[in-house]
């Protein structure tokens, strides 16, 4: 199983400004300290090996879209944030080059705009012969997708899409066999509800997608259910938008969680890896990198036995499970 991140930003797409790139280039030149490079490959190796992530690269700015890929069978996609535009093109390339079936199973965490805004730009939806099945815990998923393509918002109405598009409402507390995976669903605290997903492949590898999920301070006992749902997962993709202090003070009831609670849940679940996700749109690359370093440190400080590997999701990251 491979988990590929096409969009990792929370709430609103962001893009670096001219000054952001100028800063990175300047920092890289200072770090190079007059070194010369034989060719671009040597320069790229320097970026890879000697520069920190926030200087040499970027976490990206597309909103939530994560692919759970078995390498065969239909495509499995979590959320339709702005990252799904690129996923659409790349999966079509794989259909052409690798003979993958033109079938996409979409799993929606919820219907907030940042999680559906990419759909009008999802090229397979425009194609005859494509099959798209949109799974959601919400019975009103179809209404949300149709509404964003009403004439006041978008020039192409939903009914003009040529793909065969079907909506299925999933229930919690049971398992579904879909494509190459077994899927189960958990209800999460968020405005108009959200749902987390557990994907298990035939080799028993497990990936969890849990975004836009607030773990409420006055309902801490509910966290046992999440630890169980995350149980022994190979990768948990978790909403870590705020600091713990923010999530219980100013930003309480905003529907998001913290890096600290994510680590605790993964420790309790005995999960192997955590991917920090749904990054705060006001955060710079340096801010996200610092949050990542601090989360690694918190994991070390509170670890009981087995280490939890803490990754920080970025647009373009692919994790092999």
């Amino acid at each position, binding site marked *: 199983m491979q988990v590929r991140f096409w969009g990792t930003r929370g709430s609103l797409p962001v893009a670096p400004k001219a000054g952001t790139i100028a800063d990175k280039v300047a920092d890289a030149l200072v770090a190079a300290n007059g070194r010369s490079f034989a060719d671009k490959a040597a320069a790229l190796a320097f970026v890879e090996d000697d520069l920190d992530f926030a200087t040499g690269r970027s976490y990206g700015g597309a909103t939530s879209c994560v692919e759970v890929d078995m390498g065969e069978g239909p495509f499995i996609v979590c959320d339709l944030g702005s990252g799904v535009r690129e996923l659409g093109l790349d999966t079509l390339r794989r259909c052409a080059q690798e003979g993958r079936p033109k079938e996409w199973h979409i799993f929606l965490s919820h219907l907030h705009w940042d999680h559906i805004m990419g759909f009008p730009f999802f090229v397979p939806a425009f194609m005859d012969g494509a099959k798209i099945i949109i799974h959601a815990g919400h019975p009103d998923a179809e209404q949300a997708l149709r509404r964003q393509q009403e004439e006041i918002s978008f020039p192409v109405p939903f009914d003009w899409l040529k793909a065969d598009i079907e909506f299925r409402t999933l229930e919690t507390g049971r398992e579904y066999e879909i494509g190459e995976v077994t899927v189960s669903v958990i209800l999460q605290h968020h405005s108009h509800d959200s749902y987390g997903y557990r994907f298990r492949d035939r080799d028993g590898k497990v990936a969890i997608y849990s975004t836009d999920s607030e773990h409420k*301070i*006055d309902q*801490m006992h509910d966290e046992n259910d999440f630890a169980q749902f995350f149980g022994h997962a190979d990768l948990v993709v978790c909403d870590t938008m705020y*600091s*713990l*202090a*923010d999530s*219980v*003070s100013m930003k309480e009831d905003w529907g998001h969680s*913290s*890096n*600290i*609670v994510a*680590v*605790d849940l993964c*420790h*309790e679940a005995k999960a192997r890896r955590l991917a920090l996700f749904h990054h705060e749109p006001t955060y710079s690359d340096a801010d996200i990198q610092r949050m990542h370093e*601090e*989360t690694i*440190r*918190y994991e070390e*400080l*509170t670890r*009981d036995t087995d280490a939890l590997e803490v990754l920080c999701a970025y647009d373009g990251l692919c994790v092999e499970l």
Partner: protein
Amino acid sequence: MASTLEWQVDKRDGGTVVAASGRVDESTATEFAEVLGEHAETAGARLVVDLGGIEYMSSRGLRALTLAHRRGEEAGTKIALARPNETMREILSISRYDMVFPVADTIEEALAS
């Protein structure tokens, strides 16, 4: 084996100093929250949580501090944290709890903060 915390309570002028020792994790967080919450309602102007004997605290322990703070608000009790070890100091910083609670090196400073 369920672990528990050991508690010491010291009433002083202008407040109460409560010290727990052990690890505040999933198994002890409920006890930590309940005992602290009760003290927050009766502590007087200031409840000093002496962290000197706390090995470390997970998010449940940190959030118990917030719950105690809320219970104390009605009674007019303010909470201050004292004597965190290096680990606790780092956890307070990473969680940004050092931005919402005063953190002091000594009990006296915490009482006066």
